[in-house]
């Protein structure tokens, strides 16, 4: 139980969770709002208070804390991670033969959603200008060509009365691992050691029966999630604010047990003092802020639920194209590019 902060400090730094609403949501520390506070932007202070702590990172997911930044900028990073970091995905599907039961457009839609393991930073955007003339071509710098050629046939070695399709037919399930890369131009040399193809090989695309076949050529281009969700590089990227639970009074005995049950496991523990059990907040970070405690009349005035306004717990889960830490750095660079673009515009228009 920390010493209670002044009301002004609380309005400036905490978001309060109440029974019927949330208080102090918006940032209010602009210059002139609070007498006695100097709220003008100070880069040195920002650098002093800002920190990043990486909690967990593996090849596909990462969880890190960003402390000391405003919600608008943290949200900008989240939005860019979802919609403006480019990836490669199948865009044009040339169906030469499709005698399967899956319709052409459904199959093409499914192929577009398969994540392609190719570093988008090594490719350029396809210029939409010459779309009309160069429909089938795609240069080596902006297109990846993939081919899917599967024919289903009857298995001659199956036993006479089996009913299992796995035994009766050959190639009756079309997986993403059947999408083969066809290098164009100098791609074979540039990407000699990296195998370009789908990230996961076990995505089921279509099912066939004997006599049906698929003969498809796909062109992958670079795009961003804003255009189509297939280009989004993250499975998801989200953040939450650090919860802060403070006990307003000492709680003991049976009430303490019930209070502990109102929060997620590990948030509150019972401390044994002279044989009596007292409730103590151990780790409020684990709480999911369900506000269950506010549903009980006798418990709701014993705790204060708040969130720290400038402490963001980010969770970034990559779809496999790029590792999550690379995605975050790319997102920050995208925001910097946006700023420089407008700065250039301002400068060139001023010089006119």
């Amino acid at each position, binding site marked *: 139980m920390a010493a209670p902060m002044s009301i002004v400090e609380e309005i400036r730094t905490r978001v309060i969770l109440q029974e019927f609403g949330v208080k102090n949501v918006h940032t209010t520390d602009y210059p002139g709002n609070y007498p006695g506070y100097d709220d003008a932007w100070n880069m040195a202070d920002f650098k002093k208070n800002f920190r990043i702590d990486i909690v967990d990172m593996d090849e596909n997911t990462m969880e890190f804390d960003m402390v000391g930044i405003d919600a608008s*900028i943290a949200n900008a990073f989240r939005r860019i991670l979802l919609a403006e970091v480019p990836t490669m995905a199948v865009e044009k599907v040339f169906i030469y033969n499709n005698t399967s039961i899956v319709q052409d457009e459904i199959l093409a839609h499914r192929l577009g959603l398969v994540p392609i393991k190719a570093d988008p930073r090594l490719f350029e955007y396809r210029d939409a200008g010459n779309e009309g003339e160069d429909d089938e071509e795609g240069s080596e710098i902006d297109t990846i060509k993939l081919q899917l050629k599967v024919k289903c046939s009857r298995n001659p070695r199956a036993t006479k009365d089996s009913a299992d399709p796995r035994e009766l037919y050959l190639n009756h399930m079309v997986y993403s691992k059947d999408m083969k890369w066809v290098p164009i131009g100098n791609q074979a040399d540039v990407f000699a050691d990296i195998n370009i193809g789908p990230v996961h090989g076990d995505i089921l695309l279509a099912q066939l029966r004997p006599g049906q076949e698929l003969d498809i050529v796909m062109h992958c281009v670079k795009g961003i999630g804003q255009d189509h969700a297939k280009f989004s590089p993250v499975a998801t990227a989200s953040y939450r604010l650090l919860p802060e639970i403070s006990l307003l009074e000492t709680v003991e005995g049976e009430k303490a047990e019930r209070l502990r049950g109102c929060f997620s496991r590990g948030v509150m523990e019972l401390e044994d003092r002279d044989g009596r059990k007292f409730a103590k907040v151990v780790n409020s970070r684990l709480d999911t802020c369900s506000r269950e405690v506010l549903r009980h009349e006798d418990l709701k005035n014993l705790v204060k639920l708040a969130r720290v306004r400038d402490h963001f717990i980010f969770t970034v889960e990559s779809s496999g194209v790029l590792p999550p*830490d690379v995605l975050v750095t790319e997102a920050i660079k995208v*925001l910097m590019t946006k700023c420089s673009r407008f700065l250039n515009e301002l400068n060139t228009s001023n010089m006119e």
Partner: protein
Amino acid sequence: MAGDCEKKPVLEMMQADGGDEGCVTYVLHNEDHTLGNSLRYLVMKDVDVEFCGYSITHPSESKINFRIQTRGGIPATEPLRTGLTQLNHVCQHVLNTFQARVDEFKGNQDQSME
């Protein structure tokens, strides 16, 4: 006003007040809350700015109206330029800090695996 005729202008200036350079509405094309809100926050942190706000004119069009009103006769391009530069610096600092921490984390991971 900004951008030549061949490419689409990304930044236009619509002046609301006749002679007052301090109250200007900018139209930023191909932008949304991502840049709008973060830029608004940094421009508001400027002491000379009396008002700063942005709005999305229509959800089907990807452009924002960004309005700055300054006090003291300062032209509105100043806080805009400062805001953009500061946002750039903030991102640079975040990037450096993040990369340093990731390298540190990976170093610790390798150490504990050995």
